[in-house]
């Protein structure tokens, strides 16, 4: 029987999320105090040694990202930390759980990260729909200011820092880091060309560290208990815990924080309680819309970044969407492609035209009476073309669900 191991969510249900005193009584801001007594490069080294990887989807080393940002443009007068709380990936809701239940834990992570790269200002970009997350984070920030945890010369050190919330307004693409920066600056959410990466030229052209809410939420425990402790959790190349969000016809849909490498079967059948009465497991989509379909042959593989990548699947931000036998793979893929078509910003031709074309091909499959092999080939070709020629990662996302849907479920019904 798999068990949860709550590190990011350790305070969940134990403290009042609107009380900074509760958070402090539970040991909160102790890691930040400890960090303030350390040399910034040593904190970055510790994070690199911990093996922590970004929880927003790409799984890049959090420590290395900090080193790049810290080393970029030493003459620059500004350096920013941005927290990505846009969480728009269908099937994903774990950042909301953190922000609603323990906002201080990720704020403490932001503070430690900011100190380690000598940042001058922090921004949290929260999707506009998350009003409770916004309210709780706002309250937390005000309480921090009152206690002198934000502001000038924090705790008598040389470190001055403040954080502001910026609201998103309903755009999946704005979760992509460079597009997020455009939106944060008050513009339409059109992507920027990479490189330069935000570490070099981010917000208003200054070096910018962007991490996901959960990534920041992992940092206090690592600083407190050390990289060696953290590395022992999870798997060798994906240390630590991950919060998975499970949805669909299971008995207990919700969020579960487990060590990396926990099997899909444990997550769905132990923690989420298995399928609802009278329902049978058919498939799961890992990673959300920009994710991959898997069938029961994947149930006994451990969920970590590299393990499931070898199987052609993705972990993404930890969405697990479960489907039962009455649900149609065609219907699901169609819904995913419709979502992408809606969220395409239209700036480049391959994605703008391609995403509409894919929907047309899907409808043809639905209406066809005979062999659909040629249509399926055309869908794959179209998605491959988009992967190669689209301007930003959104247009490159279609291929994942398309290829996996067709590979695992050749009938596509």
């Amino acid at each position, binding site marked *: 029987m798999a068990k949860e191991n709550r590190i990011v969510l350790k305070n969940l249900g134990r403290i009042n999320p609107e009380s900074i005193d509760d958070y402090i009584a539970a040991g909160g801001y102790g890691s930040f105090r400890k960090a303030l007594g350390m040399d910034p490069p040593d904190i970055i080294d510790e994070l690199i040694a911990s093996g922590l990887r970004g929880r927003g989807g790409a799984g890049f080393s959090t420590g290395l990202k900090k080193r790049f940002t810290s080393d970029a443009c030493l003459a620059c007068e500004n350096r920013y930390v941005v927290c990505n709380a846009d969480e*728009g990936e269908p099937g*994903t809701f774990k950042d909301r759980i953190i922000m609603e239940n323990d906002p201080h834990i990720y704020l403490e992570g932001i503070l430690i990260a900011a100190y380690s790269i000598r940042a001058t200002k922090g921004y949290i970009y929260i999707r506009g729909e998350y009003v409770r997350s916004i309210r709780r984070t706002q309250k937390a920030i005000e309480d921090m200011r009152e206690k002198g945890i934000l502001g000038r010369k924090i705790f008598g050190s040389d470190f001055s820092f403040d954080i502001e919330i910026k609201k998103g307004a309903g755009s999946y693409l704005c979760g992509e880091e460079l597009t997020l920066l455009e939106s944060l600056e008050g513009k339409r959410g059109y992507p920027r060309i990479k490189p330069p990466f935000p570490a070099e030229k981010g917000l208003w052209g200054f070096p910018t560290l962007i991490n996901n809410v959960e990534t920041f939420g992992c940092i206090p425990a690592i600083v407190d208990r050390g990289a060696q402790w953290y590395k022992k959790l999870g798997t060798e190349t994906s240390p630590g815990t991950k919060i998975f969000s499970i949805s669909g016809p299971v008995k207990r849909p919700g969020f579960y924080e487990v060590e990396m490498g926990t099997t899909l079967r444990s997550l769905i059948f132990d923690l989420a309680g298995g399928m609802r009465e009278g329902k049978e497991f058919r498939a799961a989509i890992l990673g959300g819309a920009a994710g991959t379909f898997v069938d029961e042959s994947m149930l006994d593989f451990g969920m970590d970044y590299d393990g499931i990548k070898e199987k052609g699947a993705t972990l993404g931000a930890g969405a697990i969407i479960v489907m039962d036998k009455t649900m149609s793979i065609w219907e699901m893929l169609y819904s995913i492609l419709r979502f992408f078509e809606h969220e395409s910003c239209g700036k480049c031709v391959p994605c703008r035209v391609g995403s509409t074309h894919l929907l047309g091909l899907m409808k043809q499959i639905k209406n066809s009476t005979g062999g659909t092999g040629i249509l399926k080939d055309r869908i794959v070709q179209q998605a491959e073309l988009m992967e190669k020629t689209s301007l930003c990662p959104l247009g490159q996302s279609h291929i994942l669900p398309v290829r996996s849907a067709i590979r695992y479920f050749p009938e596509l019904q």
Partner: protein
Amino acid sequence: MDVNKIVARYPAEMDNLLNILHALQDAHPLNFLPEENLKVVARYLNTTLSSVYGVVNYYTMLSTKPRGRHIIRLCHSPVCHLMGIGSVQEYLQKHLGVALNEPTPDGMFWVELSECLGICDVAPAMTIDHEPYGYLTEDDIVKIISEIREKDRSAKPDQPADE
């Protein structure tokens, strides 16, 4: 609503644009951004009206068309789609007697579709004025709508909550 007063709560920087637009839209009894308000914003931020329009039109949560007192957003992204938002939508529209993206005759409700609201654990799901409602059934719909109507009847008209 006092547009100037709301706008003045924010420093006059472009990066406050979305925060300002949200505040104005939420304060408007019909949940939208009329042109005269956008003009105030453009002047305040020292930019053009067309660039403010450009931003407003890009984002799905912002509207330049009058909507209704209560905004119902039904999620039709993959999880809610599979979990049956379609029949909830059909029932809700019949119950209110409206098509999508138009107000009820009394101006009370406006129904629109949205992408994933981040509450997929309780799919099929919706929000009304940003409050989440999940595991929706037909009975819930009737109850939720009548509760809101009831609450409005006992409240004073034209005093929407600020933010």
